[in-house]
């Protein structure tokens, strides 16, 4: 999954050793290098506070990108992530009144599941391309958001979500927002599911060779549909987390995550053609993007330059390992 092919076993040259390094190590390594570079420029950047600040930003982006990771691994893409985030966040806040916080939480996750289920069924059963299906879903959800909420301001966030996200917790004597351990825990659970469950393994097989998977007797349609379903649930969860952390919600709150969720996944070493990727890598990718953002802020370069650097990083990453294997 993460390592490259075990090719050339006899020639233990430096190249093949490098190829054996698990992919998620690279973005994490890049993050460490960027962190060190930051320290060289501004020594006070090498502090626990600075690290926590970057990591908090990165984990929020990661949570929004976990669903995208699952979609990309199975050779799809989920462009409905932005408005799934917005829809889940707004409906969660709207449902807190009638259903109570926990009921609203469950209902919002279920709505994410339903969104993912429809995406999956249309893609797997009707055979529409993932891009078209999820763009249509994204548009449909935007309509639903505007019709149901009409730019109304919903700002009452229940305490238990604040406790999950923006409340300060102390771990090993370090103060951090609760979203940080929450994101890491979610990463751990998802990575275990992807790496060690039969379903997780089959997701990779479907992503790299759907026809082979079919011939091997896997129920490809069911795996695809469940993959999109998980992607929808994770995007909905991200919506609730974002509401909890920033304590505000709007119709367009997901817009920034359209490109940046794909960016985190790609920088995290996933193949855009499917069959390769990991949530640990996605967190690494988000950390790299987060550290760039920190450096840009410290050096006072402006938010524009940050976007430019994001673009260059993606180009560097895909030219390192994004090439078509056949070309």
């Amino acid at each position, binding site marked *: 999954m993460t390592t490259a092919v075990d090719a050339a076993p006899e020639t233990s040259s430096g190249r093949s050793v490098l190829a054996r390094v698990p992919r998620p190590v690279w973005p994490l390594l890049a993050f460490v290098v960027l962190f060190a570079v930051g320290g060289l420029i501004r020594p006070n950047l090498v502090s626990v506070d600075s690290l926590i600040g970057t990591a908090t930003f990165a984990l929020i982006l990661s949570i929004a990108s976990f669903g995208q990771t699952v979609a990309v691994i199975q050779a799809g893409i989920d462009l409905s992530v932005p408005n799934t985030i917005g829809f889940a966040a707004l409906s969660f806040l709207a449902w807190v009144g009638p259903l109570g916080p926990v009921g609203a939480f469950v209902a919002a996750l279920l709505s994410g599941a339903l969104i993912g289920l429809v995406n999956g069924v249309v893609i797997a059963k009707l055979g529409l391309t993932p891009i078209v299906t999820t763009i249509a879903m994204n548009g449909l959800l935007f309509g639903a958001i505007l019709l149901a909420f009409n730019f109304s301001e919903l700002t009452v966030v229940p305490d238990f979500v604040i406790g999950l996200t923006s409340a300060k917790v102390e771990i090993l004597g370090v103060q951090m927002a609760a979203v940080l351990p929450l994101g890491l825990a979610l990463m751990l659970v998802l990575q275990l599911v992807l790496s060690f469950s039969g379903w997780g393994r089959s997701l990779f097989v479907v992503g790299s060779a759907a026809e082979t998977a079919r011939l091997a007797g896997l129920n490809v349609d069911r795996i695809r549909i469940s993959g999109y379903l998980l992607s929808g649930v994770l995007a909905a969860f991200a919506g609730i987390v974002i509401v909890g952390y920033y304590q505000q919600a709007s119709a367009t709150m997901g817009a920034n995550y359209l490109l940046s969720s794909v960016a985190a996944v*790609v920088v995290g070493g996933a193949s855009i053609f499917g069959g390769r990727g990991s949530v640990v890598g996605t967190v690494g990718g988000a950390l790299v993007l987060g550290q760039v953002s920190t450096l840009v802020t410290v050096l006072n370069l402006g938010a524009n330059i940050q*976007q430019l650097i*994001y*673009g260059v990083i993606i180009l560097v990453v895909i030219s390192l390992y994004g090439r078509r294997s056949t070309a």
Partner: protein
Amino acid sequence: MSTLVTPRRLLDRSGVVRLRREGAIPPIGAFLLFLLVYVIINPSLLTRFQLQTAVNLVVPLALVALGQLIIVLVGGIDISIGATMSLANVVFASQTESLPTAVAMVLALLVGLACGVFNGLLVAYGGLPAIAVTLASAFIFGSLAREVLDRPGGDISKEFYLATSGEFVPFVPIALVWLAVVAVLLWLLLQRTALGRHIYGVGSSMDSVRAAGLDDRRTTLIAFGLAGLVTAMGAILLAGSTLTGDPRSGDSYLLSSIAAVALAGAAFTGGRGSIIGTILAACTLGLIGNLLFFAGVNSYWQYVISALIIVAVVGVPVVWRMLSFRMKGGRS
């Protein structure tokens, strides 16, 4: 094209067959139905002012969708198309302040071409996936656009507005003329030149193109450059009709250009897609909001309805094939 176009020739079976093969029949049907409903609900569409407003609304989308179509024909997808549009738009609007409009236009077109060539080089000669390359350049071009002009502005003359978005001759909105010129040139290029057939060929069967000794990389590069050029034309016409340059003006065109190409029945694996289908699909998607407004329905429904139209037009033929396949299979 030099032969006489007689009605008989227009109905030539091969033309219809081609439209069907390119998947253009469903979007044409959808557009005609949509237009009928529109005119019934709002007969005043055919008045000068409303027609012109409607045309100015859909022409930029139609041009950007044509740009997206060319990329899709070679089997790619352009995530950076909105950013390319924003960049060309602000370059044009900001340069009109100091340079003659014609020079600013050429500059904007060159910027669009450069964006396309940048993507094309990386995709064709770098062997990188189009979706990842254009994801990266979406960040880069978007950032450059905000460097050129960080808030809506620029100085676009009244004359330019009249020349791009006014009425050239009474009852003929000029934007439609420009769209028609681009569409016909593009149609000639794609259907009547070797290059055009190579573009379709690269998308439908890369191996055959290579086996035939044709240069698939050069063709891909030219397709990306062409798409950038057409996108820049869309950006210029958008600047002409809104009278400003806006670094975020292209953002909403990313998803809607892909939606229009999907609705046009193009195959995202490449090699299939028609110009007329794409233009009519863009018209349908662009005008749904207007129709709902005149029908007295909350125009937010446009997002829901567009999505349902896309899924219906793209999905119904698939379901139809599946059903007919099953019925035939059951009989035998």
